[in-house]
């Protein structure tokens, strides 16, 4: 039973931690993806591929950066994003010993979290935690299913490629291939396989990528076209695109529920092709425009009739052809500077969308206090009122022991001259607390909660309450 409880507690705390990341991240991702998408659309053909790639990589960066990361220059300082805070169980009073009958100051008492009250009936916060557990489990199942599906498809593809019959490359290609690899500045020459199968020209594999060409393409293409195709695939390997694709795939699985992530992945995939096209153009020099024709000619048999798309988007092929029409970009240094500056600005202003914790706590304190006050007052009304004193004593002892010079120390005075004086346990006490504005952060919060409890206790006890000096 203890193990079961421990497991449940672990699950609950894990779910809360997960929600503490995912909920704010989901909102923040919408902002980041929205900004990047808007810039991509506005720039249109004026945007060079390197800039587009850098912009969309910022979305990947956002996925791994904690949502609490803040920046004084962040746009989050200007707009108020929904907090999406995980509501953990609030401070509850200790209800251990009901024999203590000390009177409480009306508005100056403190309390702290209580294990005893957790065992009693609890309002809202408990049902919210359960929802987090459900969401967490749904997310986990989604990740698992997607990972299994993608892995299965990967194995199936790998098996089909391995079992496809090899076709010997023409002699001219065997001689020309190393030259092409050198043209894109590859140090090692990747393996080339020509197979008799229905597959497009592609790079397959992450750690040791292989270029796969269908025999039909080799058969039907001119030498110039084949060289262009190989240059493109070699450029993918040079740029380590299979590795980046794997990284974005893993992140997409982790955020499978978020459409912005899938949009970013799709767009990154398109932009990768643009960058490879750019690399081929650079390798071909003054023969670069012939590559554009090769691209259109190879792609032509693959134009499917128009249909509904979940994400309506411009044709990738049209975009690539139009980028190629612009030719090799001049003024490369200015483009590098422009890319670096744009990315830096967005990385500082758009990626860190967390808000300063102290500011959040200060601004949401009253909301939280209202919720916790109601919850705790409701709980306190069901608990033994006299045991509140025990909770107060424990809290005071804990606060006082932490820093003896703390101006917010609470001084407890036990009154011996009260008409109620009798046994030591029955003598009323008062609590001298510092002014509210000297108490900060969580102490201030507990102060408000305790004040509410004290009102409740006063109403139920009908003891003399010592006024605050």
């Amino acid at each position, binding site marked *: 039973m203890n193990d079961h409880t421990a497991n449940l507690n672990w699950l609950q705390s894990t779910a809360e931690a997960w929600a503490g990341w995912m909920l704010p991240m989901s909102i923040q991702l919408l902002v980041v993806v929205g900004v990047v998408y808007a810039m991509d659309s506005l720039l249109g053909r004026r945007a060079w591929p390197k800039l587009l790639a850098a912009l969309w990589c910022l979305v990947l960066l956002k996925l791994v950066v904690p949502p609490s990361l803040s920046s004084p220059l962040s746009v989050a300082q200007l707009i108020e994003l929904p907090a999406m805070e995980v509501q953990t169980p609030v401070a509850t009073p200790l209800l251990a010993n009901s024999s203590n009958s000390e009177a409480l100051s009306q508005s100056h008492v403190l309390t702290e979290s209580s294990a005893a009250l957790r065992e009693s009936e609890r309002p809202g916060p408990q049902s919210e935690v359960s929802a987090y557990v459900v969401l967490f489990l749904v997310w986990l199942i989604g990740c698992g299913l997607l990972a299994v599906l993608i892995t299965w498809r990967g194995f199936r593809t790998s098996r089909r490629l391995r079992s496809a019959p090899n076709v010997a490359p023409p002699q001219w290609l065997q001689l020309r291939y190393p030259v092409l690899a050198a043209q894109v500045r590859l140090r090692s020459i990747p393996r080339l396989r020509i197979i008799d199968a229905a597959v497009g020209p592609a790079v397959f594999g992450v750690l040791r990528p292989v270029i796969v060409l269908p025999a039909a393409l080799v058969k039907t293409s001119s030498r110039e076209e084949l060289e262009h195709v190989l240059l493109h695939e070699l450029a993918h390997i040079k740029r380590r695109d299979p590795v980046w694709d794997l990284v974005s795939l893993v992140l997409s699985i982790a955020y499978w529920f978020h459409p912005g992530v899938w949009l970013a992945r799709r767009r990154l995939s398109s932009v990768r092709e643009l960058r490879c096209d750019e690399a081929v153009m650079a390798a071909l020099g003054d023969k670069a425009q012939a590559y554009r024709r090769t691209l*259109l000619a190879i792609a032509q048999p693959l134009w*499917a009739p128009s249909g509904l798309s979940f994400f309506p988007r411009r044709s990738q092929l049209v975009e690539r052809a139009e980028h190629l029409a612009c030719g090799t970009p001049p003024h490369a240094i200015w483009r590098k500077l422009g890319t670096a500056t744009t990315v830096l600005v967005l990385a500082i202003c758009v990626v860190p969308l967390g808000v300063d914790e102290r500011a959040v706590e200060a601004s949401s304190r009253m909301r939280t206090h209202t919720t916790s006050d109601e919850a705790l007052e409701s709980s306190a009304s069901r608990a033994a009122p006299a045991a509140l004193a025990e909770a107060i004593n424990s809290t005071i002892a804990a606060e006082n022991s932490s820093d003896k010079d703390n101006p917010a120390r609470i001084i407890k005075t036990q009154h011996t001259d009260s008409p109620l004086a009798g046994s030591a346990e029955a003598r009323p006490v008062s609590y001298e607390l510092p002014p509210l504005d000297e108490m900060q952060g969580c102490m201030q919060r507990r102060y408000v909660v305790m004040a509410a409890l004290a009102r409740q206790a006063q109403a139920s006890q009908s003891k003399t309450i010592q006024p605050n000096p």
Partner: protein
Amino acid sequence: MKLSDTEWIVMNAVWEAGEAVSARDVLESVESDWAYTTVKTLLSRLAEKGILSEYKRANTNYYESLVTRDQARADALHLLVDKAFDGTFGSLLQHMVSREKLSKRDRQRLAEMMAELDAKKRNKK
């Protein structure tokens, strides 16, 4: 229009030449140990299929292509990208081109670009 592998080799040589070719021209450009008569037979067969036009000049038969490489390739490649390798959902293949749904406007735009490039190529020759 379906071409066998050997017919593709011959047609590639015709397209690479860019002008009317004889059997001797084709034999010299292909990387194979075919006999002259084999090449001549293949060219005649292609002419019968309507893919090449044949005419005689100075006692030699010349052959010219009646279809473009793109037209011939379309039939051969229309099944090129198997849906299993489609990169839209998790595939780790880096395709050079993939099957794509195009709007009418995009198809027109691409056709215009092709025509523009073909015209430039002809002007250069």
